[in-house]
């Protein structure tokens, strides 16, 4: 008996109200229990590990080996816009298996006691990981374990439209993002973890001195100078990429991936090599101390460290990868055009490499930067 039939029967008085209510109850119960059955049938996302990461890392291309081991299922994802936001969320009780901080934040993350050391012997790809990337400030846990398995490294710089930005024969420089000529057509990543450091480069502050009151004032001053020129600040790469592709923005502070992806779409953009030096970083993977699925956490990390993932990271995103074998598929010219090298230290030390800071500094920086973004 279908629903229309029942309504008809009620209208004609053939069906008692009680009988109708009973069938309503039955369909209600059926609908309420339907999702439970469907979930069980679908090979269960709750069986997968959870990966808490930046936007853009939640794609199947990075999880080939993981999916091969897990019936084609990807891990579960949670996405953050900045690593400080991620840490706050986890301190508030959000439990994940793997998260994705960068070298600058890592010692602070370790200090919260929210993470467990990684045992490299459980990672099949570990022998191919470039040792220089593991050897970061604060990365040694007891017993030869490490806190963060390096995954990607690279630069934060300016992606600009070669047809809309006129360098007038000058060298590429961070000044593009402070040029009143392009007022209202400039963009920036909204997270202080990138923007404030770029401000330090622009203000000529050495990263060694970034934690001084004078540095704070100098950087705040350049950020305030830049703010009225900005179309928008966002944590969303796609927003910046679309704006650059439509000409809504002519230049923006981005990671390498935005430039590489826009170039692949035929948009005339370039990832600048600013004369002051780009901002450089190494990001990696940490396991939560209460990770509900530690085995899956190691699988996620091993998958991200695989050669296959490395190819995608280098070729499609323009990031450096931590697996030395991933570079074998690319010749020196290609790597150079992406601003990468088989020897990461060449690239990292050519730019300004982020230095870990105290929690007080990080909080004060975020507070100041958010006020500047709001116009104060």
């Amino acid at each position, binding site marked *: 008996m279908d629903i229309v039939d029942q309504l008809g029967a009620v209208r004609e008085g053939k069906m008692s109200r009680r009988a109708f209510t009973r069938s309503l109850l039955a369909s209600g119960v059926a609908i309420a229990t339907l999702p439970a059955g469907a979930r069980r049938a679908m090979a269960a996302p709750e069986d997968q590990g959870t990966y808490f990461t930046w936007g853009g890392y939640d794609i199947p291309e990075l999880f080939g080996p993981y999916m091969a081991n897990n019936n084609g299922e990807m891990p579960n994802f949670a996405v953050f816009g900045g690593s*400080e936001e991620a840490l706050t969320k986890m301190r508030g009780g959000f439990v994940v298996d793997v998260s994705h901080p960068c070298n600058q934040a890592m010692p602070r993350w370790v200090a919260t006691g929210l993470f467990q050391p990684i045992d490299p012997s459980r990672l099949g790809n570990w022998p191919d990981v470039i040792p220089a990337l593991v050897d970061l400030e604060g990365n040694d846990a007891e017993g030869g374990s490490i806190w963060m398995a390096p995954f990607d490294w690279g630069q934060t710089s300016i992606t600009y439209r070669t047809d809309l930005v006129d360098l007038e024969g000058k060298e590429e420089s961070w000044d593009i993002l402070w040029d009143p000529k392009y007022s209202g057509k400039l963009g920036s990543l909204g997270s202080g973890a990138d923007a404030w450091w770029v401000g330090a480069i622009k203000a000529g502050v050495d990263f060694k001195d970034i934690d001084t009151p004078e540095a704070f004032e100098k950087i705040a001053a350049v950020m305030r100078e830049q703010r009225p020129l900005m179309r928008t600040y966002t944590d969303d790469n796609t927003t910046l990429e679309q704006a650059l592709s439509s000409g809504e923005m002519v230049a923006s502070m981005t990671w390498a991936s935005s430039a590489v992806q826009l170039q692949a779409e035929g948009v005339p953009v370039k990832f600048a090599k600013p004369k002051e030096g780009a901002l450089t970083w190494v990001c990696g993977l940490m396991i939560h101390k209460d990770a509900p699925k530690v085995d899956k956490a190691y699988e996620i990390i091993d998958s991200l460290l695989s050669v296959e993932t490395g190819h995608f990271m280098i070729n499609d995103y323009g990031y450096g990868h931590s697996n030395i074998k991933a570079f074998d598929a690319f010749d020196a010219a290609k790597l150079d055009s992406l601003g990468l090298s088989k020897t990461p230290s060449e690239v990292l030390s050519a730019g300004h490499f982020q230095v870990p800071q105290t929690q007080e500094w990080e909080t004060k920086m975020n507070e100041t930067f958010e006020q500047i973004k709001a116009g104060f």
Partner: protein
Amino acid sequence: MTETSSSSTKAQRSPGRGGLSGLLHRHENLRGFLLMTPTLLVMGVGIIAPFFILVTMSLWTRQGFDFDTTLTMANYARTWNEPIYGALLSRSFWISGIATVATVILCYPMAYFVAFHVHRNKMMWIILMTLPFWTSYLLRVFAWKVILGYEGVINSGLMAVGLIEAPLEFLLYSQEAVIITLAHAWAAFAILPLYVSLEKIDKSLLEAATDLGDGPVARFMRITLPLSLPGVIAACFLIFIPTTGDYITPALLGGPDGAMIGNFIQLQFGPVNNWPMGATLSMVLMMWISLIALVFLFITRLAREKIA
């Protein structure tokens, strides 16, 4: 004798009713409270308890990643002394005030039309008018991003017609964008109360007014508008209160100048990592909204007395 016999028959009857049902039978208040228990529980656990947590936390201060739990008004003093909070609050009230007025003015004619000029399938009209609101709030905000965007529907349309040569940039990432989106996104909350109050108006009053010589304008001002005021007030509250603290619309469409207090509260719980300050800002927002609501109620009461 009669006294005892009647009481004994009562005593005989009451065991049949059982303890609880007898109790309920005798106490009307108890019946009422029992009926309300689920609601009261939800209110207690979901609203009152969190509210007290919020009040307490707003009196704490941040200390590194932890809280200093000595009670102090320091956060409230900061919201008063630092200009950024006042500026964000007044911007929020400005934006949502304009959005509220725009929504009510735009929705009133729609509700009026259905209440007075549609005679068949009224429910279908109402459903059709609220149909866009069956999609998620986030999707509607994104849809506006597509409409107002640099290469969006409005800009490409105007450029195709030749009215403008370069895209209008103020459409997106501005306070205007937030106002437009809020006015659309909350329209359903204006249409429904307005329709209900207009529908209830006794049509014979309008006929009487016409008979006594009122023209259409005077009739509207003297009868329809005053009698529909409860709906207008309800619509204003339903839109103004939630939109003041709205977070997602300014975050996606506001740009640097369109940020509202809701965004700043979110930041306190996120990257800025100052939960007590976030709690304080939420409390201050609540107090200001209550104050504005009271003033608004007072003004409308005055207006009604004047009209009456």
